[in-house]
C-alpha cells in the first residue's frame, strides 16, 4: 500500500465490462518527504475521494475482485482517505 495524491479524474466509455460505473482517478504516488512521483497512476475509487485529497492505495487485487467480479483487471484501489499523517518524531525517539 502507498500514499498518493489525487490529481484529477478519467472519463472512459470504452472499458472492460466489469469496470462499468467505476470512478477512475488520476493519482501520484507520494514519497516519505511528500514529493510526488513522475508518472501518474489511475486508481478505482468508490469512497468518493476528491481532487487534492491524499489517499491510501492498495495494489492487492482481491478487494477489487470481490467487488467487481473475478475477471476484473482492476488492481489499484483507494482503500482509505487519509485524515492525517504523523511524521514528527515523539520526544523519546528524537
Amino acid at each position, binding site marked *: 500500500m502507498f500514499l498518493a495524491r489525487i490529481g484529477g479524474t478519467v472519463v472512459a466509455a470504452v*472499458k472492460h465490462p466489469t469496470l462499468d460505473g467505476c470512478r477512475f482517478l488520476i493519482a501520484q504516488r507520494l514519497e516519505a518527504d511528500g514529493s510526488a512521483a513522475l*508518472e501518474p497512476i489511475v486508481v478505482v475509487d468508490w469512497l468518493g475521494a476528491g481532487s487534492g485529497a491524499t489517499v491510501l492505495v492498495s495494489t492487492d487485487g482481491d478487494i477489487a475482485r470481490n467487488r467487481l467480479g473475478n475477471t476484473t483487471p482492476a488492481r489499484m484501489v483507494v482503500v482509505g482517505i487519509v485524515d492525517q499523517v504523523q511524521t514528527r518524531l515523539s520526544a523519546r525517539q528524537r
Partner: protein
Amino acid sequence: MRLGVVRGHVVLNPAVAAFHGKTLVVLEPVTMENLRAGNGLGGGKSLVAIDELGAAKGQMVAFTEGREAANPFWPNAVPVDAYCSLIVDSINIQP
C-alpha cells in the same frame, strides 16, 4: 492502472497458444508533466499489452500490470502481465 499512448501493434508468428488471436499493442507510459501539457508525448519506458478494446494508434489507454492483467482470461492461465483496461476519452486535471 497506468496511462499509456498506443504507438503501434505487434503481430507474433509463431507464438505460444495463449497469444493466438490476441491483439498486442505497443504502449508508451505517460509522465504527469506530459499529461498536464496534453502534448500527446509519453516519456515512460515502453511495453506491450494485450488490447481487447480496439485502441487505435495515438489513443491513450489505461493498462493494468501484474497478476490482475490475466484476470480477464479467468479461469484459464495465460502468460499476460499487461492488459488494456480502458480507452481514455478525456482527463480532467486540477491545476
